């Protein structure tokens, strides 16, 4: 298969990529704009000896994922914004019990029932923890169907390596669009041994999956272990794309679908002679602070999101006052227009010196 280009919908491409990465169990509940993902799984999984279960709700689905992950399976679920909100308790449990799995959120406009068009307003929820307690998911923000496909096996692998749930944070456009995509071959995935899994006293030892620690000092120990792990992930797993950053008058920061539009805007800006750069986070958590830390000669930052301003806080945190940071966002399913972004770039390039 390798090498052949296919024209696939994002939702279906992720599903196929997951299957090729060895995922054989999917638990989900329908919601637009990600329905093609479970539907693809419903068709394909039985063909490869896997199991698809349409759960009675998102709450049930995430807890099925918990059970399956605890039993050692490579397992995933997917949903979109309101459905992901319902999963927050379960996600906190998965993180606390250190169970690997993949959660896909094809974001749509919120809050509330909102709409079904693309948005990026669940960034806080995904990266800061929408559930209770101190925990983190490993969150990816792909910008294309191809990247989504490439990140899927990586997400599973990192989830296993760190025993931590991973999330792909897409949106309605990434889920619904078709693009040429190259899939890896069906991997004969040898999952890493999961000695901790509850498979029925394997090796004669019994195993327990739990996140209950009635003793505060025990619970603090769990939290320390988790925080150490998160530090390690922050050190090791940051991923991003940097384009023409040094010397840029305006450095744009954007992820996912928005990054594509920003790239169009940058082309327009370059035509006008404005020096623009881009930092495109690929991992949203860990946020790619390294992309910012060694910067010297930049003018200012412009963060663009399909939200009222969420990732911009992480940019401000890492920039820490060294340069001005501006924000431009559209909400509710409206995709920013490159020309509008260009207008912001122009203003900033005019207004701002190198500092």
């Amino acid at each position, binding site marked *: 298969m390798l090498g052949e280009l296919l*024209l696939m919908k994002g939702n279906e491409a992720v599903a196929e990529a997951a299957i090729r990465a060895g995922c054989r169990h999917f638990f989900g509940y329908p919601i*637009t704009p990600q329905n093609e993902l479970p539907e693809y799984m419903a068709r394909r999984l039985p063909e490869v000896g896997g199991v698809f279960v349409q759960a009675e709700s998102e709450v049930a689905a995430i807890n099925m994922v918990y059970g399956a992950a605890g039993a050692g399976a490579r397992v995933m679920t997917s949903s979109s914004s309101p459905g992901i909100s319902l999963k927050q308790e379960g996600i906190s449990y998965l993180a606390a019990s250190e169970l690997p799995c993949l959660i896909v959120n094809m974001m749509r406009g919120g809050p509330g029932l909102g709409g079904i068009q693309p948005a990026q307003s669940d960034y806080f929820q995904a990266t800061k923890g929408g559930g209770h307690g101190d925990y983190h998911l490993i969150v990816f923000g792909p910008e294309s169907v191809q990247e989504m496909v490439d990140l899927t096996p990586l997400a599973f692998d990192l989830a296993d390596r760190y025993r931590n749930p991973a999330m792909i944070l897409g949106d309605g*456009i990434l889920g*619904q*669009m*078709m*693009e*040429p995509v190259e899939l890896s071959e069906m991997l004969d995935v040898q999952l890493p041994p999961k000695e901790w899994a509850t498979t029925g006293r394997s090796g004669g030892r019994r195993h327990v999956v739990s996140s209950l620690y009635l003793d505060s000092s025990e619970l603090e120990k769990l939290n320390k272990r988790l925080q150490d792990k998160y530090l390690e992930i922050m050190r090791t797993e940051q991923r991003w794309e940097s384009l023409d950053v040094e010397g840029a008058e305006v450095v744009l920061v954007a992820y996912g679908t928005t990054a594509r539009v920003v790239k*169009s805007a940058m082309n327009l800006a370059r035509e006008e002679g404005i020096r623009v750069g881009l930092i495109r986070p690929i991992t949203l958590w860990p946020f790619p602070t390294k992309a910012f830390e060694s910067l010297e000669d930049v003018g200012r930052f412009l963060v663009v999101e399909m939200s009222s301003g969420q990732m911009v806080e992480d940019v401000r945190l890492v920039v820490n006052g060294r340069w001005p940071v501006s924000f431009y966002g559209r909400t509710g399913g409206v*995709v920013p227009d490159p020309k509008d972004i260009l207008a912001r770039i122009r203003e900033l390039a005019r207004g701002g010196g190198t500092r």
Partner: protein
Amino acid sequence: MLHEILIAGFGGQGVMSMGMLLAYAGMTEGLKTSWMPSYGPEMRGGTANCSVVIASDAIGSPLVTEPSGLVVMNLPSLEKFERKVKPGGLMVINSSLVKKKASRDDIEVLYVPANDIADELGNPRVANMVALGAFVAKLRPVKLDSVKASLKKVLPERRHDLIPLNERALDRGAGLVD
């Protein structure tokens, strides 16, 4: 090179596959290409449309809001999208169903009696191919042959017996363009 194409019509008119054929053809020609449907319940009983972008460089948003090429298969689509076409762009109108004329004079307009020609060909369902043939012949975002070659990838298996008919429809459409 950058073609931003919008194809719009009623639900059952086959506008989605028109777009997919373009995207597929672009891909086989080594171009960057994307296809994006309108989605969700607001489609119910209303108009359906899809965006196709074919470009030599990386594609920004796959959502086309100001098309350089527009195909309207029914009246509501004309009313909704005509004013959005880029000056100098192309609009193909399915004149079998759309009796109204275009009101823009800064764009190129092609009237294609797609349903009539499809009826002539013996199957009203290939009206979309007639319109697409004309559109491709005029705008040339991809080669007509690439579109034809894409038919077997885009049409579901059970429709493959209709490929010759679809090819004829594409040709008839293309034939309208001198």
